[in-house]
């Protein structure tokens, strides 16, 4: 409820006088027992209607708190790569005779926050919400946030052919365009909103967003745009192991890293995401606890392979990879990064066994460049598009300048085209051949490696260049396409991972990117925060967390 805001000159005068007097008073920050206050990096509360915005932070602090997917991510361990586990589907299997058909057995007894039952009809309703423009619940905005993550699913608007079908009240069949073993990784991004609540809120998604209802372990109790969202445990959540220990979670958007640090040090929040690296020693000195872990992220240069690009020569690509002092860059980041050995880390089941090692060896780099016909009088000249900031970009300016110096030392001259983050993304979507690229030979956009499609397919498959996809550099290699096809046709997880390891091995051995570091997602919290397990995932669970 909105409180009264009496406003008069008298009140204002009293208020201002009190404020001046209070400037000198000392009072300890207030603390509610069992309440965790989180300072997010987002500039606003993520959309709460089902599919969140604000990237993966939106999933972390809104989507996966209020909602479940049919398949969830396992966030129970900090020691192993985070995989897929049953969510609102108890099990799923592919049809042995027709591998485009998937059968999902829906969990019985799962309820939405509004008390309505989750069943096969709710699944169909949620997919219609994203694809069927004639359905009352269709939302173009919501569709734009997630449909690209599920490219395999069949949907033809002209014939209204849908790749989702109810078999019985607790069984749903999905159809993919072609056999695709990556499908479970795609469907886990689709979060299930309540049809009953949509109706109760006048079939208006904006009203639904104020009073959302999912099946997740947290319920939203308050949302103040740009200021805060408050969550309390959903006691009837179907998974007892994910019953929240806290009484309440408050998420606060604080996009500026200095403001986040100040908010933590002044006791206004208990936890902050991504503190600035140079603030970490200060935070530790003041008794804050740092949490970090490797997760599926890579900071790299995406190289152009269009005609005339110097990166078309594998010797130049390898030389650049050997010229980078990754230890120095990790130091620059306060130690909160891991040197890259490829697109994914060696701890990843898809790493494989590449023979090309990403070590710092300027002499070997110079030798490769000499072999390719370059030397001190004839340096390689490249133009790179970079941003001054951006989601997952870590410290793009100092990191790129460090690399520029490293590369200059071996004979690669780098010119930067620095732009604002959204402009960089516009150019990324457009591809290396587009006019906006202005002849750039590379682009610095950090990437998720959370699932096979995001890690490999979208960058490596010949047919996924602009406008069909984000193979920005127009890389094309028939043998790589074959490996990717084999991986998507391998329905046994071990076999599939084996093919993906071959994809990655080939990718590294051909030095297709200039890989630098993996982020470790540092977050700082007070000593009172207990029980957090930082999974090797972009998403995290707050259910085991408690306040001492």
């Amino acid at each position, binding site marked *: 409820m909105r409180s009264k805001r009496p406003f008069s000159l008298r009140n204002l005068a009293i208020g201002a006088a009190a404020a001046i007097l209070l400037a000198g008073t000392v009072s300890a920050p207030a603390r509610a027992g069992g309440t965790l206050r989180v300072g997010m990096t987002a500039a606003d509360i993520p959309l709460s209607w089902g599919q969140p915005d604000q990237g993966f932070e939106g999933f972390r602090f809104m989507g996966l708190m209020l909602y479940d997917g049919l398949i969830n991510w396992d966030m129970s361990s900090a020691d192993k790569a985070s995989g897929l586990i049953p969510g609102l589907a108890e099990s799923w299997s592919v049809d042995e005779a027709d591998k485009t058909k998937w059968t999902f057995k829906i969990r019985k007894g799962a309820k939405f926050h509004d008390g309505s039952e989750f069943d096969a009809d709710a699944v169909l309703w949620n997919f219609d919400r994203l694809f069927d423009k004639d359905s009352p619940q269709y939302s*173009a905005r919501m569709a734009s946030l997630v449909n*690209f993550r599920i490219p395999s699913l069949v949907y033809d608007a002209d014939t209204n052919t849908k790749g989702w079908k109810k078999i019985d009240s607790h069984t749903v069949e999905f159809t993919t365009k072609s056999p695709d073993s990556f499908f479970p990784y795609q469907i886990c991004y689709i979060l299930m909103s309540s049809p009953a609540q949509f109706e109760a809120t006048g079939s208006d998604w904006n009203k639904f967003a104020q009073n959302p209802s999912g099946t997740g372990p947290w319920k939203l109790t308050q949302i103040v745009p740009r200021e805060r969202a408050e969550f309390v445990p959903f006691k009837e959540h179907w998974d007892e192991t994910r019953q929240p220990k806290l009484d309440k979670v408050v998420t606060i958007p604080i996009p500026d890293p200095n*403001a986040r640090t100040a908010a933590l040090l002044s006791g206004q929040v208990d936890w902050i995401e991504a503190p600035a690296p140079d603030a970490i020693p200060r935070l530790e000195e003041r008794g804050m606890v740092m949490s970090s872990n490797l997760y599926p992220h890579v900071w790299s240069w995406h190289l152009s392979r269009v005609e005339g690009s110097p990166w078309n020569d594998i010797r130049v690509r390898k030389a650049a990879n050997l010229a980078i002092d990754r230890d120095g860059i990790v130091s620059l980041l306060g130690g909160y990064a891991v040197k890259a050995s490829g697109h994914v880390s060696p701890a990843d089941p898809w790493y494989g066994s590449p023979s090309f090692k990403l070590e710092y060896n300027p002499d070997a780099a110079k030798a490769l460049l000499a072999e390719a016909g370059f030397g001190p009088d004839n340096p390689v000249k490249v133009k790179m598009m970079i941003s001054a900031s951006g989601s997952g970009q870590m410290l793009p300016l100092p990191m790129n300048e460090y690399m520029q110096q490293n590369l200059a030392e071996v004979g690669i001259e780098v010119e930067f085209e620095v732009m604002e983050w959204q402009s960089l993304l516009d150019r990324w979507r457009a591809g290396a051949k587009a006019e906006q690229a202005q002849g750039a030979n590379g682009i610095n956009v950090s990437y998720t490696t959370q699932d096979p499609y995001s890690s490999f397919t979208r960058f490596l498959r010949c047919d996924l260049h602009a406008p069909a996809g984000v193979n920005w550099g127009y890389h094309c290699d028939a043998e790589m396409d074959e490996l990717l096809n084999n991986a998507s046709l391998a329905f046994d997880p071990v076999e599939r991972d084996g093919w993906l390891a071959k994809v990655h091995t080939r990718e590294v051995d051909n030095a297709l990117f200039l890989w630098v570091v993996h982020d470790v997602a540092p977050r700082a919290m007070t000593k009172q925060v207990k029980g957090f397990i930082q999974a090797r995932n972009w998403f995290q669970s707050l259910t085991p967390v408690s306040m001492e």
Partner: protein
Amino acid sequence: MLNYIIRRVLYVIPIGLGVTVLVFALVHMSPGDPLSAVVPPDAPEEMVQDLRKAYGFDKPLPVQYVTWLGRVLVGDLGVSVARGREVVEELRIAVPNTFILAAGGTLLGFTLGAILGGIAGFFQGRWIDKLATSIAITGVSVPHYWLGLVLVIIFSVEMNVLPSIGMGPGGSTAWEWDAEHMRHLVLPVITLAVIPMGLITRTVRATVAEILNQEFVQALHAKGLFQRQVLAHIVRNAAPTTLAVMGLQLGYLLGGSILVETVFQWPGTGSLLNSAIFERDLPLLQGTILVLAMFFVLLNLIVDILQSAIDPRMSRR
């Protein structure tokens, strides 16, 4: 007089239309796709086109302008693309928050400025004048955001006596005029007050110095009035100029300070503009700028009418 007021009110119509054209053109002339910040980076072009159509960005700009103007005339500023919320509702929350901050900043700036300026004017050339003038120059020269950050480091991070962000423990919707909320107001108000304080100090100093040299002050002294009685006359004479400057500063601060509101996470119009710019949220951006611009148009109207009431020569022009 009445004719003047009617004429002046009628002027607001073409001015308002001009403002809408300017706001719409400026916002649409800025580079970048209005949807690029709200759709994920690898959303397919087809999906982006669907969304473009849903928001009407596929239509020619003149058509978009007329449609927008039609809605504005009935009080509908549209829906934020990024947030899905009504722009009017966003402004309903943000404008009072900025008003609280602006009023606090103006009051503090005016009080300090009037005191310092008065002292400096009375004691021209003395050390206290130099001190007050130095403070005033520092006030107008120090960047807002830098001062804000320094205050946060000193009072929030090091001394831990004042909060660094927000409007209170429960956000702006739970705002109360109590001690806890006042603590949240202290640092942003001080940061916002330094420029008005500097400007008003210099204005008051110059005005007081000028008045002191006028013959009527000598006459007052010659009449044998006490110093405080003379002072009352000086204050009365200096007031119109000082109030005019204060009014301008209030208007300026009401526009919302993007930097101060961003540093302190104050949920006002400055903060709203900041997020609208970064998210390229055109409906929110043009709605906010329009409301702020119209606010200035109306403020000018009120000032003009008041001036004509005080000085009849104005209305005869």
